[in-house]
């Protein structure tokens, strides 16, 4: 056996022993606190095996090579393991920001804490700053040893349960809009912070809005230079996109097998649609692996992250839409999906409605196409945006 096959066998054995039996039924329709407890327990199980943060540097508890990471995600998907939904922003976005631009002190303070279960959310979007994120209006005014922040944030996933928040705020109102933004780490227990859930199209409420009223952030929690926040966000989060996609693509590939099982295979039209999806999935998975390896080697292409996000999200939407189509009226009657499941849970109609959570946030598909066109292909910018 090769090392990779050895590793696969090890992960398989681990999954058989550790994936909680019957978790899907048990986690369907649960209250938030039960979901949080389940997520935290599962995170510690994975951590114990060294599988929670395989993409982190070895010095911080990760260090798994990309082919092994892909195998890990394949096996977790194949054994229908719960996903790390709650820790997602912490282990990906927060970690990549701290590793890429944080101070040693910030890393020492937060990376071990994340392994102990610290939850993070992201405070980027605002009511008037969606696709045009750089137009954000939340202000951070320098005051003594810190900043005083005022404004409103939107679409902060799981903010009600978060301990910390990655926050973008304007520190220079006079500078061109991208040049006046700073990147902060915000303690969610700070006074002046009001977090309210937003009910989404699926009926769930994991997205939140945040109101910041004279919220104080110590200067120690600034990431990168003052007014360099836009660049920090671009540099630290772009490469991360590939890492998250490596897992999500493997999950989707496994979801494809459920889609096959749910489909009337005696219909040649159905077969044709399925085979079309499988070709795209095979391409997507290979693209994700290739991108992650390039990013690891410091050779990420300028549009890599946008290409995988765009194609993953739209393929997810088409596949779950097809699932809803073949599931018939029975599919319409599945009213809840298991918390902690993937984006393709088998509750096809809900999965389909929920797929807009991928084509809209994190830069809409339209924004991704603009990025691909401009950064990937070098096409001219729109005159209005060129200023």
């Amino acid at each position, binding site marked *: 056996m090769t090392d990779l096959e050895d590793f696969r066998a090890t992960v398989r054995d681990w999954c058989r022993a550790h994936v909680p039996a*019957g978790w*899907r*039924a048990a986690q*369907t329709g649960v209250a938030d606190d039960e979901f949080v407890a389940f997520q935290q327990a599962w995170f510690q199980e994975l951590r114990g095996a060294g599988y929670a943060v395989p993409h982190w540097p070895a010095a911080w508890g990760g260090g798994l090579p990309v082919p092994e990471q892909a195998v890990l995600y394949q096996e977790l998907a194949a054994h*229908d393991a719960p996903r790390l939904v709650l820790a997602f922003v912490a282990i990906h976005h927060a970690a990549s920001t701290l590793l890429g631009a944080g101070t040693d002190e910030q890393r020492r303070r937060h990376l071990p804490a994340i392994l102990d279960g610290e939850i993070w959310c992201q405070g980027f979007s605002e009511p008037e700053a969606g696709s045009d994120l750089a137009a954000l209006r939340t202000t951070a005014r320098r005051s003594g040893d810190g900043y005083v922040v005022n404004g409103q944030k939107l679409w902060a996933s799981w903010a009600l349960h978060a301990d910390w928040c990655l926050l973008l705020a304007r520190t220079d109102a006079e500078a061109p809009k991208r040049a006046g933004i700073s990147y902060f780490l915000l303690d969610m227990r700070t006074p002046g912070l009001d977090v309210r859930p937003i009910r989404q199209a699926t009926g769930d409420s994991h997205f939140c809005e945040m109101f910041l009223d004279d919220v104080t952030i110590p200067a120690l929690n600034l990431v990168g230079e003052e007014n360099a926040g836009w660049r920090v966000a671009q540099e630290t989060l772009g490469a991360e996109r590939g890492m998250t996609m490596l897992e999500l693509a493997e999950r989707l590939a496994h979801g494809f*097998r*459920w889609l*096959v*099982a749910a*489909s009337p*295979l005696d219909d*040649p039209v159905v*077969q*044709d649609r*399925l*085979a*079309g999806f*499988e*070709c*795209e999935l*095979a*391409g*997507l998975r*290979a*693209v994700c692996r*290739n991108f992650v390896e390039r990013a690891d080697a410091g050779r990420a292409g300028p*549009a890599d992250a946008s*290409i995988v996000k*765009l*194609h993953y999200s739209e393929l997810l939407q088409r596949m779950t839409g097809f699932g809803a189509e073949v599931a018939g009226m029975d599919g319409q009657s599945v009213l809840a999906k298991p918390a902690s499941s993937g984006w393709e849970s*088998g509750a096809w109609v809900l999965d389909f409605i929920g797929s807009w959570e991928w084509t809209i946030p994190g830069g809409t598909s*339209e924004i*991704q*196409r*603009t990025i*691909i*066109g*401009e950064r*990937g*292909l*070098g*096409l*001219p*910018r*729109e*005159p209005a945006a060129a200023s």
Partner: protein
Amino acid sequence: MSPDELHDELRSVARQVLGKADPDLAQLAALGWLGLEVPAGLDGAGASLAETAVVLEEMGRAATAGPYFATAVLGAGTLGMLVPTPERDDLLRRVANGDCRLSVSLDGESGFVADAAQADRLLVVARDPGGDPFVLSMTAGDAEPRPVLDATRDFARVTVTNVGERWRFTGDPEAAVQRLRDRAAVALACDSLGLSEAMLEATVAYAGVRKQFGRPIGSFQAVKHACADMLVQVTLGRELVRAAVEALVADDPDASVAASMAKAYVCGAAVDIAGKAMQLHGGVGYTWESGVHVYLKRATLNRTWFGSPAEHRRRIAARYPAMAQLSDRSVSFP
């Protein structure tokens, strides 16, 4: 040199040469391309489909016409799968040296056989009375030209009139013929990948300089986003081609599926891409002079030749009943 460096070198030479003119048999031999997959002992390079794939992609990019596909990809590929005989070895040597132009029919008497009218020698896959495939090696005989819209390709109808030599496949002959079909499918996917890249680059270049309403048309989202979709398709297609080539070179048991995936996706996408290229070039793109039609026609032919996307998807889908049984989760899923 590492394999990657070797491929880069080969690619750079191919782009330069093919950008000027279509090489003839002698030039292809001088470049060493005809013998890429011919064993070193028979005047070849003893390389693999991985190297041939580089040449094919560049030929797609340049919409190259000529004997390479029939002689090297199909011809040398077929000969390489036969039981070695002095006659076979001699023919392989002549192919590597550019002394013999080949044409291959994988379907016996057939209406559309590439280069059949120009070939010196014809290899026809026929079946013995027991149904087992073998190869009939004949001097070129009657071939009735079948002109096609894609002017970069030559086809003729082949009828078997003279009885040539009968050559056997090594190993399971059905598997050998399937592997030849897989090779052909992947070769066309390489070609369609190259022509897609060329069309994307030409469109991006044009959209950057062509001005309407006082600005480059590439600054309009409708144009920019269409180009972005082309890049996504090319990016996915490149990975599918790479996977299929690697699987064929390694003789992977799933190579046939990988070949069908590459053929179905890339040859389908190439028609979308060349079609979008014509659209985004506007009126200029529809002119004969622009040459976009050459690529659109070639892409359309590639999509059909050696199996339409739908036919390849049907082959891919043949695995689904078994997959459905393995993934039946009615037990675990409420």
